């Protein structure tokens, strides 16, 4: 005469199990978005690279001379070598400077420790040096004032926080960080309206700003398919997809079309 009891037992056990399993299921679905799968560190032995040049197709607009009469201390610096606006800087053979080339897609969710070494942005002769800065999110940016006048540094980002700080001559460097990826944050100095610069922020280290020779090289890329993008302040962006095998190096060229009006 044990059957009724055993029946109860079985039923109770079944109920308990189903409840437990239900609970477990809910737990996992809840936690899913919060937990990022730990990305494997980049294996430096198998990485490859993408390199190439950026060119401008068509004539570059003639750089305009900047009149710095409003700021005599800077005008003096440029007395012999006048300053030109740096919107389009072309090298020999149509190579294009100040283009940020970077991995747009394909780097995955890997978290990269931001470098501790700061990237510097100097204000010298009332121009920003360099004109385009690229750095990693949370990597320090050091703003230097080498001029004998007060500048204000005023980045106007979309996804990061806007700030605007005054830097009198001789003041210590301003150290700031940007928390989020953003290409590219325009920077201006309200005191000297001709001063312009751009800051590109990435969550990975796969980026480079071209010099006058227009060349770039993105190193340490693990095997995979990448969207490589090039950004220019005037000509916008253009991108290409590259698939890299382990230890493979590929070459990619970017060509921006010069605007017909210029």
């Amino acid at each position, binding site marked *: 005469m044990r059957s009724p009891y055993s029946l109860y037992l079985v039923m109770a056990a079944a109920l308990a199990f189903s409840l437990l399993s239900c609970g477990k299921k809910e737990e996992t679905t809840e936690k899913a978005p919060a937990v990022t799968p730990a990305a494997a560190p980049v294996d430096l032995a198998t990485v490859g690279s993408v390199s190439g040049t950026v060119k401008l197709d068509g004539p570059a607009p003639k750089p305009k001379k900047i009149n710095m009469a409003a700021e005599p201390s800077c005008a003096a610096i440029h007395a012999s070598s006048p300053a030109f606006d740096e919107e389009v800087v072309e090298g020999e053979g149509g190579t294009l400077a100040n283009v940020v080339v970077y991995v747009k897609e394909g780097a995955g969710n890997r978290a990269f420790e931001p470098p501790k070494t700061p990237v510097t942005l100097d204000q010298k002769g009332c121009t920003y040096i360099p004109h385009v800065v690229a750095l990693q999110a*949370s990597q320090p940016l050091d703003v230097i004032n080498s001029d004998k006048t007060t500048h204000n540094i005023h980045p106007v980002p*979309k*996804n*990061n*926080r*806007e700030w605007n700080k005054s830097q009198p001559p001789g003041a210590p460097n301003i150290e700031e960080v940007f*928390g*989020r990826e953003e290409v590219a944050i325009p920077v201006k100095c309200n005191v000297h309206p001709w001063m312009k610069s751009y800051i590109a922020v990435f969550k990975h280290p796969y980026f480079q700003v071209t010099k006058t020779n227009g060349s770039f090289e993105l190193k340490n890329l693990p095997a995979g398919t990448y969207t490589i993008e090039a950004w220019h302040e005037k000509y916008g962006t253009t991108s290409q997809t590259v698939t890299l095998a382990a230890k493979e190096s590929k070459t990619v060229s970017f060509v921006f079309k010069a605007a017909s009006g210029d």
Partner: protein
Amino acid sequence: MPETHSDDPIQSRSFTVPLLVSVFLLLLTVAWSLYDEFYGLRPWRSYQHEFAKVYAQYLNNQIPRQQNREKLIRESAEYKKLDEQVRAAEEAARPRLREIGKESDYIDRRLAALTDRFQEARGKVTALVYTMELYPVGTNSRKSKFAEVEQAKKEIYAVELPTPDGRVETKKFVYDQLEAEFNNLKARKAQLVAEQGEVLRPPKELREQRDNYFKEKMEGLTADQLKGLLNAAEHLDISIRQINVNPTDPGINNFGSGGLVDRCQSCHLGTDPKLVPLAMTLIKADLGLAKSKDAPFASHPETELLKIHTTEKFGCSPCHGGNGRALDSVRRAHGRYEHWLWPLYYAENYQAGCQQCHAADMLTEHAPVLNRGKDLYRSRGCIGCHKFEGFDDQSEQILASRQAIRQLEQEKKDDELEIPRLNKAADAAPDNETARKLNARATNLTVTISNIDARIEQLEQKTRSLFREEKKVGPSLKEVRMKLLKEWIPYWLGHTHEFRPATKMPQFRLEQDQIQAIAAFIWQSGVPGPALAKQPPGDAGRGKQLFEARGCMACHAVGEGSNVIGGDFAANLSHVGEKAGYDYLVRWVHNPRERTRPFCPFEKRDLGPEDYAKHGLAYVFDLEHSRCPNDGHELQVQQPTVMPSLRLTWEEARDIASYLITLKRKDASYELAPDLDDPRLKERGRALVKNYGCAGCHEISGLEDEPRLGTELTTEGSKPIERLDFARLTEDAKRGVLPDGKESPRGPWYDQKGFFEQKLASPAVYDKDKYKPDPLDRLKMPKPNVTADDINALTTFLLGSVDPQLPQDYMYKPGDARHDVQAGWWIVTKYNCMGCHQVHIGQQSVLQNLPQYQGDNKIKLPPPLIPEGARVDPNWLAHFLDNPAMSKTDLNRNGVRSYLEVRMPTFSFSDDEIQKLVRFFAAASSQAQPYLPPKLEPLTDTERTVARQLFTSPAAPCLKCHATGDPAHDKDATAPNFLLARERLKPAWTLRWILDPARIVPGTAMPSGLFRKEGDHWIFSGPLPPSVQGYAKDHADLLVRYMFQLTPEEQLMLTGRTAATAGSGE
């Protein structure tokens, strides 16, 4: 045979007698009820009969008197002349009028003949035109209809027209001619009517002139008017006279629906303007009833009041109290029975009726008793314990702003913590959209914080103002250790009214041991220093002169008994030398607002030099250094006294203090008070001080935030009688027995009036026969130092302080300039401006009545401020009130009237107070706000020469009396420097002033009659200098323009010139 029952009363007894008695009783009852119906319950009927009789008698006496007056006027040469002119003018107009009348008649007759025919023709033509218009243009039908119209217009009408010589002629017209004739006649008629008006005008104007002359000369009503009144009195309709206000508005009062119904005039017939016009006053004596106690026939004694409070809007009872509907007895109508909550105010309290609507006024015109009551309520420190809406509540406001600041600071802190949290979340956000939102929230928080900062800053500014405005009735007790003779303190507590008979401080009911404990607490809680600067002795003789000359006596009195001289706004200083420390007195006289330690309301303590030293700061705190070194909040840096700084030199302060120290009785001595340093007494003393609410009137260390102890009295007059605790006196009050056992002159005093009067006379009275073994259980209210008149004024004020029964729009809360006047009075009375100045017409300043300002010395009085708003530029006035020396460095002087010894003090007004005062003066002089100075026409070269000559002419030696800035000259000056005019004065006022100064300020040193009117402009009335003779424009206007464009250089030149011309002239 009928059965007889010998025991049946119906058969055996007669009911004749009881029936007869019943019949009589019934008849009597009917008669009684009829009597009651017509007379008993209608006492007003007999009043009306009597009024009709005595009033008719009075009028009958008056009529011949007035007729005689009229006759005298009509027979006067002036009237006859005017009357003659009227007649002459009428005569002159008559021929033309006759002609006009004749022609007008003729036209009327012609029109009458013409009109019918014309209207008939017009009807016909119009109808045809209408039918034509029904067809579109260009159609044949329209054309044919048009032909019909043309045909109709050609039809000939024969009219029989009258001719000028009276005959009738028949004339024939086509339509157009008929219309023209009709219009011509109409036009001519209009012309004639206009001309008639023109011709009639001269006699009409002259008639008005004659009648006006009659009205001006005639005193009282004319005989005809009186005859009209007599007729009304003789045929007086004996009926209820009722004023009904807003009958359709049930919300007018609590007296019931159907609005306000007042039937007071049923007995008080003299107040009915239909019977006794407002232009006529009627008193009992006029009616031959001077001695009667039952003759309610006088007219309203204040017709001015009635004009602004018409009975149609206000009725009677809203102002006077009483039951306006009741008619059956005087007692009921006056509401003096237990079921009526608003009894008629007694004569001595009638101004209580103003308070209900005028609660927001500090000064109500026509209500001196009420005003006195309000003034006492504030000045005697009732407000220290009893909150009253509208009266000073700065301490509550300071507390509220401090709490608000605390709360905002906490909010700010929370927000500041939230920002980095949001930033972090934004950097880690999964997508840019979220990141942007989070970043935006962080950015918004920074803006919120900055808003909080702005609000805190505003609250700090407000606190700063409030600290300036906060005044205590009594002196600060924080400084007793430097101010007072220690042993005097317990004496004062026990003998308050003996030591200083007119003091504001009430006498507390204290036992000897309580006095010791309180004195010990006061002494021990006093701030310890820093020690005051040691002052060398001054010259008491010179001090006395300064005391009398600088204006101290506008507020302070000296002398005892009947020898008291000076104002009663502040303490009588007769015995001040017995209690005050010299060094303290010197500092006080030099600047009474100076404190030994600033008070920090956040830390709730008085800061010392050590607090400043901690932050490396010098121990400097004043209105420019009023932030706490520890937390940055506003400090109380002034003593909370209304006494202003007279900007004396230290030497003068020493002289005055030396004089004050001599004010004491020779034999004054006080027992040593060793207990005062006993620390064991301090706690008990503190408890007692809290119990008796000393901090309501005094600043006391550690008790700065004590709330007011007593009942709020804003609506005390509405308190039901059951809630006023007559205690063991209830029965006596109902029987009319006063607490001292005497009979109450007005009978029972069980009402609000009785309660207030007895409470004010002796607050302890309601403890009579109560069992209260612990002194702390007894009634706490101290005995105020008030006279019987004061008690009446305070009672009047309290009786009137009721929950408003009238609708909101009856409350006197004007939205226009009168509001500025209303608000200004609170400041003017707070600082006793009227001690030195005349501020409203008819008011006397305290100084005016002092012996040192009589006769010739009137010239030394401060200026009257009645025309101040019209006189000065409000922007200038604001600066002047802030800094009456009109200098940042040279403070020992008057900024405007440098020649006056009496000193306009520095009150350290808050910005709000200055604004209220400036607006007050502007509104009181009906000035538009804001004031934009008019542009004055610049002077031409010729004008400048003319003006210079006028300015310095021997007949108008302006610069003899007006100060010039040259000390040698200015010591005899009696008028302000002209250089101030441009910033200070308004040109329009200046012009009125130089034309007739005595009209603006009677008794001024400035002479009238400097100019005479010639045509439409003013000419200098002295001998005209040569250059002036050719100048055709207004001289007064020229001088005003010159004055407003005067420069220091020009004035220097003038003073040089005066000497030169004076020399050459002789």
